[in-house]
């Protein structure tokens, strides 16, 4: 019985972490059709921001939930204004530019922080489920994922900013005709997407550690989840993370982590073959 509870928590955790790392990319890709290959590096920078803030005495919660998103959000806006702005509509060129950006960020981080970086350990301790001990931090991550997704939903659905964002996404010219400034919307959106990635990286830093090349581990999964989800940002990310995260974790539990990865990738292929427009191409089409 306790094993079932443990497995359920692990599955929820896998889904939550997949959703967290993907939602930033989903916003950027869903809104602006920009393939951001530097997404993994935004996650990495979020982790570093949290570590630097914590080592300067700021409370770990503040550095993870406030400092990291702000720092990476600002970096995102800077990147958008200097590089991405010139490349809208040119998906291939954004791929090349963001790949170059990812190399640059890895090199820069290595130069500044070196190879040996002190990490932050997971707070909140552990608790027992029958014969098993597990980390309480996993519950925190699940909670954060729910809060973040909820906040995005509320923002898109009920605020004016969300309305403008959705309108620009559907038809930029019409939005411009109605008095909205699309370039400003894009910059803010890119910044918010980057900030969310920074938050995800910071939240996951105590669990997976932070070193300059950790972005590689995230980018492929985030990319696959976002595309598998389809056009709608929120319902796509949620449904795709739920599906892939569950398959990944159950396969890992039954066999090995490697086979879990392969199962996730295999599920992605089958999904896209059956639903060529992603999940929200067929289901939840009217969703956000």
């Amino acid at each position, binding site marked *: 019985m306790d094993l079932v509870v443990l497995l359920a928590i692990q599955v929820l955790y896998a889904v939550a972490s997949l959703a967290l790392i993907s939602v930033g990319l989903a916003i950027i890709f869903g809104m602006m059709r920009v393939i951001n290959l530097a997404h993994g590096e935004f996650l990495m920078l979020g982790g570093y921001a949290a570590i630097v803030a914590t080592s300067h005495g700021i409370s770990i919660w503040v550095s993870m939930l406030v400092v990291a998103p702000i720092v990476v959000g600002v970096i995102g806006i800077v990147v958008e204004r200097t590089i991405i702005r010139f490349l809208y509509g040119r*998906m291939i060129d954004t791929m090349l530019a963001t790949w170059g950006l990812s190399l640059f960020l890895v090199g820069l981080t290595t130069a500044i922080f070196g190879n040996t970086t002190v990490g932050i350990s997971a707070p909140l301790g552990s608790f027992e489920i029958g014969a098993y001990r597990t980390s309480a931090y996993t519950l925190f991550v699940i909670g954060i994922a729910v809060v973040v997704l909820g906040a995005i939903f509320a923002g898109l659905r009920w605020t004016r900013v969300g309305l403008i964002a959705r309108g620009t996404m559907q038809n930029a010219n019409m939005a411009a005709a109605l008095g909205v400034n699309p370039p400003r919307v894009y910059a803010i959106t890119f910044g918010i997407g980057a900030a969310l990635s920074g938050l995800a990286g910071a939240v996951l830093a105590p669990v997976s550690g932070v070193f300059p090349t950790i972005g590689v581990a995230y980018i492929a999964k985030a990319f696959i989840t976002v595309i598998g989800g389809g056009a709608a940002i929120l319902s796509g990310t949620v449904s795709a993370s739920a599906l892939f995260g569950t398959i990944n974790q159950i396969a890992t539990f039954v066999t090995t982590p490697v086979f879990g990865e392969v199962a996730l990738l295999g599920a992605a292929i089958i999904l896209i073959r059956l639903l060529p427009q992603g999940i929200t191409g067929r289901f939840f089409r009217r969703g956000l």
Partner: protein
Amino acid sequence: MNGRSLNLLGLAVVAVVGLTFMFLTPRVVDLDTVLELTVYMIMAILALSLALVWGYGGILCFGQSAFFGLGAYTYAIAMFNMGESTLPVLVAIILPAAFAALLGYFMFYGRISDVYLGVITLTVTLILFNSVNSTAGPEFHIGAARLGGFNGIPGIPPLNWPFNKKAAIDLEAMFYLSTGSLLLTYFGLRLLLASQFGHIIVGIRENERRAELLGYDPRVYKLATFTIGGALAGFAGCLFANWGAFVSPTIFGLAQSAQIIIWVIVGGRGTLIGPVIGCIGIQWLSALLGANQPSGSDLWSKIFANAPLILGVILIAFVLLVPKGLVPTAADIAAFFLRRRRREQRGFEPQQAE
């Protein structure tokens, strides 16, 4: 001179330069440079395979490294089991081609397009990476060849002259083989693209619906293009396994995949020579940045001896300044100057105000 004979002139120039390069280089430069050039030639074949599939076929394949890696591994495994290289080379071309045909059938007959293609091909190469990467134990072997997991397969025996097990080809011959293969691939693709097949796939790339309405089944043509690309990449993989005498799972990884795409973008999509130049240029640059590391740890050397940083900056600058790719931009510049000179030659003067 009309367009057709100019085209033939251009091809003749490439042939002459290419053959001169091929036969002259081993006599003129040292062995280390010959070895370095050999691997650049091999990677250029890989770049050409994606140039065909993506540049001309319009299929965004993010996993071309899958076929490359399959070719390399197939050669290595077959070579350890058979000992004589003629059959392994054939298998190393046929197996990736068959895999490409299967994957292509799965994708194109499922009407999957653009970015979703990219995701599926990326996923496929990552599955191969993850699977092969975890074959380190001694129980993972195909016949006499241990797969070796992360460590890969070292000590791969080199090619030998066909059907003559004892006569392995030497380093200079390897160079001739690679350069010759590159030239053959280039001219072969030129021929293919000049044929009706070539025109059709470009038409499909431009507007698939229109091509379909004109009576061509795009799925068949895309499948054929994808399979040819897979075969070429597999052949490049086979040569690569020969050059380094090793193969390891990183050949299937994201970094290798992205590299191939970067070569094509930097060189110029829609051309054949562009990706070749992009490939050689970026490879040479990476090697240059990695060599001659300074001893200090000061900030200056941290930035300038920092290969990822410099390469990243160059790529970003490239996209912003030379968006079409090296070769098309160079052609544009040349055309601009030629047009100017032609205007001057004809005595075109702006009207003076009276």
